[in-house]
């Protein structure tokens, strides 16, 4: 059984224009990225995935365990995949001709080499990938970003990253009624001020926040962490307070199980 049915059942459908922020503190929240990737592909959305930290085959192998083939999705045009690690080599070591061939459109990771202060190239890549096309079989749109902190490590300022996210929201959420899911790592006790600024600012503007945290008491074999789900009802007209749910989880080879706090199968 897919864990999205247990936990992420939302009364809103897929085509709603939401911005979901994935956070992790003292743990690795990438399992949430894998979940959303397979979720949106199964839901029939056209997906643009900006994968900055891992290779395509890593996501593909995990996706197959979750029942989706990324290779097939790419071939049928449902998935546009930017593999940051491979792509940056083209920017740095690729020949001049290659760069000129992509006439009119700068390379999405151009900012690494030319020190540009904005992420315009990356935004234009996203915009082009998800633009409506004739004969498009995919009614929904989704943009996945893994992870935003890497952009800071590559020299982009927090403001440049926030601008990029803002432009994406306008293009994807507002104009195309698509969804954005972005992972931003880092904790409250982090010394990385730029990252803290980025994460805090993103939190304020997110419709939904999924926050994976390591347990305060340390490592446990049966409970890998806790997940806070914050639905930002306060952003909606009506001024309802935010809704907070807390679950604990255990990650398995092909699945993630969620349960109420203290009710892990190991202790029942």
């Amino acid at each position, binding site marked *: 059984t897919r864990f999205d049915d247990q936990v992420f059942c939302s009364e809103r459908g897929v085509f709603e224009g939401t911005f979901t922020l994935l956070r992790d503190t*003292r*743990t*690795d929240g*990438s*399992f949430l990225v*894998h979940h959303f990737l397979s979720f949106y592909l199964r839901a029939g959305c056209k997906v643009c995935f900006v994968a900055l*930290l*891992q*290779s395509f*085959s*890593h996501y593909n*192998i*995990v996706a197959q*365990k979750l029942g989706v083939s990324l290779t097939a999705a790419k071939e049928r045009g449902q998935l546009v995949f930017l593999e*940051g*690690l*491979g792509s*940056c*080599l083209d*920017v*740095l*070591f690729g020949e001049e001709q290659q760069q000129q061939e992509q006439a009119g459109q700068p390379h999405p990771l151009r900012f*690494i*080499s*030319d*020190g540009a202060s904005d992420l315009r190239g990356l935004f234009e890549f996203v915009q082009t990938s998800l633009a409506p096309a004739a004969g498009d079989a995919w009614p929904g749109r989704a943009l996945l970003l893994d992870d935003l*902190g*890497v952009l*800071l*490590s*590559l*020299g982009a300022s927090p403001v440049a990253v926030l601008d990029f996210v803002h432009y994406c929201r306008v293009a994807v959420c507002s104009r195309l009624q698509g969804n954005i899911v972005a992972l931003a*790592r*880092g904790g409250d*006790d*982090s*010394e*990385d*001020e*730029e*990252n803290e600024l980025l994460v805090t600012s993103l939190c304020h503007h997110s419709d939904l926040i999924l926050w994976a945290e*390591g*347990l*305060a*008491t*340390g*490592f*446990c*074999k049966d409970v890998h*962490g806790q997940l806070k789900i914050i639905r930002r009802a306060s952003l909606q007209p009506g001024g309802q307070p935010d809704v907070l749910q807390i679950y604990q989880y255990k*990650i*398995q*080879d*092909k*699945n*993630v199980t969620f349960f109420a706090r203290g009710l892990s199968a190991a202790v029942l």
Partner: protein
Amino acid sequence: MPQNCQSQSFSKLYHMGTEELPAPLLDDNYRNELGEEATAATSEDFQDSMKIAWRYQNLPKMEVSPTTSARFGHYYDVSQTMSSELFQSIKCHSFFLPEELSSQPTIKMCNMNCGYARLLQSIQKIIYQEGFDGSHPQKKQKNILRIGIQSLGAMLWGDDICSTDNPEDSHSLTKFLYVLRGLLRKSLSACLITVPAHLIQNKAIMERVTNLSDVVVGLESFIGSERETNPLYKDYHGLIHVHQIPRLNSLICDVSDTKDLAFRLKRKLFTIERLHLPPDLSDTVSRSSKPNLAESAKLLSSGCGAMAIGKKHLDF
């Protein structure tokens, strides 16, 4: 992993004299060295069936060294050096920044520190020319390029992050690591780097370096620290902290139960062992040493990467 060193193509990217490399332990020697340690441990553990603590009879014996039962990787005799014949038969590349900078004009690559840029070019060239990226099929037996980089971030690489809180270019190191990661992912290679973390003033950089790495291990020496005199650590030379392990091609990762590891340099071997409190057996333990051990118990972590933010230990 092939046991015969001569069939490996080992590439080392830093200038280092062969007189500094320890001699590898080949099959028979290995068994002798590690075997005598293991048998010593098991002979002490032999016990009759327990009468009082019988509940513990069926628990597995505590293994001090996690790897006595299985051979993994290579072992080295630190009291001897590697023979030069062995070293010369291996294809090796080295990179010594002062030589590189003097031989060629400086290049500008993506606003990165020149030393790092030059190193990346050198690595990329070797990967391409030796065929580790599949660009032209390797004629010989397929092999993995092994890269070692020492003291990344130190001043000898032209970086100032070890000498100031506000470095001139705080992004050079992380950009370098990102591109290196790309080169490794796209070729048959693996890389080990060392970073003088204690010198890097800006802790944000260390967090980013960790996030850009697959495996992060920290070594903490007892020399010069107050832990040198702590009875808990008397048999060891330092601690090993496993900060991060890779979660690749899978949702799960292989987290070990053991979070407290210490290392020591024995007469011939460098070993890593589980840290544990010695049993408090004697009736005549003096008052002065008892509180020391109690303090030491608090040092044992109750968790690892998901670190305990409070020292929550149970007192009975």
